């Protein structure tokens, strides 16, 4: 299925693998951080509401 990449097979595959990994990584980190901060905001706002 993978086309014959000739003598540069390792390089090309490495580049694709690393690049895709980087993209997946930045998306994952972004989403994770977003979730964490949303939760923290909800907690702080709840405390605020309770303290008032």
């Amino acid at each position, binding site marked *: *299925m*993978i*086309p*014959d*990449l*000739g*003598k*540069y*097979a390792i*390089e*090309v595959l*490495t*580049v*694709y693998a*690393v*690049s*895709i990994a*980087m*993209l997946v990584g*930045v*998306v994952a980190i*972004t*989403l994770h*951080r*977003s979730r964490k*901060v*949303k939760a*923290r*905001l909800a907690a*702080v*706002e709840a*405390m*605020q509401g309770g*303290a008032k």
Partner: protein
Amino acid sequence: MSIWEYANPKKFITTTTPLVPWLLWGAIAVLGVGLTWGFFFTPDDARQGSTVKIFYLHVPSAMMAINVWAMMLMASVIWLVRRHHVSALAAKAAAPIGVVMTIMALFTGAIWGQPIWGTWWAWDPRLTSFLILFLFYLGYIALWAAIEDPDTAADLTSVLCIVGSVFAILSRYAVNFWNQGLHQPASLSLDKEENVADVFWYPALVCIAGFVLLFLALVLIRTATEIRLRRIRALEMRMRS
């Protein structure tokens, strides 16, 4: 600091949140199509062999590295002139994405140069300029991290972004001059515009579109996160006083 200071930040979040899933899934779909097309369904290049397939990752990431900085520049100017917090936070949010793009451009560019240069790194004008851009990104992010007060940080980083942009452009010309001064033959420069046949260009266009969609999704999510962080800080300070 009152609740959500201005209507803007809250409206930003409510407006953009529904857009994000579309952008994100759209990006994944478009990128998937583009990369598959480029990887499986395009021929090799006579001189570069299969490394030409790196083109589909290198070109979009390089374009994004520059475009993200351009967006940061615009956002910085808007902050300095109009004081929209969302603008300043959008610039802050975009920077790490730009760093990733720059690293990817450097990494893919260096390896793509392998068949031509016979080495993993060469001080090619384009790569060198991206290395300098990488340093500018780092400085920008470091400055945001170093300043306590968010408004001051926004001011300082905006000025840095503007001055940095001028010097980045200046450096581009300086580096071109510098490299040519070393009497290296022109064939060593990775000129992506030279003779790019349609068969290579169309999948690249699709990949570029995918990267753009991805950036939009990520920057919207990250800006919303920054807005929430700012609100947390405001609330925590109020609770403390």
